[in-house]
């Protein structure tokens, strides 16, 4: 299996409007309901790895209105086209992150809704260690718009 990269995304896609009610966002984000729309993709995904990356843009962090990909928690995706098995290398912001189970459940549940994905293996990794530097540009805009300051 080959580790894939996050597909390049269109600039400026999907930022939240300023002045939003952050409490409402927190209450609503489980399940990605108020997650900003994912980037707009050109055409269908080329392969299972790209399909998985795109789907992961729709999985929200349990605490913040930002996708796991934009938050930088997804460290790698690999897939076996024939068996439909997908492996996700996932890290957390902290070793004692209280949401590790939720996040893994959400990843599994979302990926299994994709056609062609039959099995999902989530591998928790700590290298590279997560820091705020792993948040994408798009993620930074989303958090800023939600009124969350990043300490770097």
């Amino acid at each position, binding site marked *: 299996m080959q580790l894939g990269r996050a597909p390049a995304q269109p600039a400026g896609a999907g930022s939240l409007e300023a002045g939003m009610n952050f409490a409402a966002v927190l209450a609503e984000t489980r399940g990605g309901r108020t997650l900003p729309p994912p980037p707009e993709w050109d055409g269908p995904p080329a392969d299972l790895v790209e399909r998985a990356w795109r789907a992961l843009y729709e999985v929200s962090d349990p605490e913040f209105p930002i996708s796991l990909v934009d938050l930088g928690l997804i460290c790698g995706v690999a897939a076996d086209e024939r068996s439909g098995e997908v492996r996700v290398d996932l890290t957390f912001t*902290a*070793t*004692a992150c209280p949401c590790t189970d939720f996040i893994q459940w959400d990843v599994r549940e979302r990926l299994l809704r994709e056609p062609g994905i039959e099995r999902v293996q989530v591998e928790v990794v*700590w*290298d590279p*260690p*997560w820091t705020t530097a792993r948040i994408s540009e798009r993620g930074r805009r989303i958090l800023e718009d939600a009124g969350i300051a990043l300490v770097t």
Partner: protein
Amino acid sequence: MTGEKYAKASDLPAELRDRLGALVLVLADNKRLLGMRYSDWILGAPALEAGIACSAMAQDEWGHGRILYAMLRDFGEDPGQLEHERSSSEYRNMESLDAPARSWPDLLALNLLLDTALSVQFEAMAESRFEPLHYKVSKLLDEERFHFEHGRGWVARLGGTAAGREAMQRAFVPVWEACLRWFGPPGDAAGLVLCQEAITDRDAAGLRARWLERVGPVLASVGLEFAEADSSGVWRSRVEPDWDGWDPEARRGSEGGPDPDTLARVRGDKNRPLLMD
């Protein structure tokens, strides 16, 4: 770094696997118990910020403990049994963690001295040939950075008064001695094997020297005379470790383990019916 990497415990030669498994359990138990000792001070610390820092430090230690216990599965252990089913004498924690820190200076001794001793051991495994450790150390040490700063800041603060210095002097003596021993005696077999096999990059003496280099200057800066730098700048403890009663397995200088209340809490006895994997 020379030699092949070990991707999993079963790749290790038997003796090395036993030694490393024992070290990981020692580290896991110390992390878990240290987290509990921090949590004892979430309420009642001298400042709200200090209590919040204790909460954050407890969380870090438990996160590290969780990772380390989980790692032992690969060594043939059952992490659930290790975390919830052992008796007091089966724990491998330093004696300073058996009971709650009675005063804030006691807690600072754990924060500055004991927590740093654990971090020095992890630093020595940053380039470990055992990859499951190597890949976790940088995240773990990243989370530890502020623990040292917190300890250092409070030592400086209490060190500003004679009463504070005296209280720290009294509180730090037993933890100092426990930490000094913890790295192991000269020629410690476990340390040598792990070092020769490049699982760690320092033996007992090297680890102790690094620890003295970290904590010695902090204490000396407020006139606490536990260590001093010799003419070549090497920090040396003013007391020698006492090996009487040393238990190489538990890496502690006296028999015993967590007290009954600590044991019940650390195992989660109260919530046993609710335990989830």
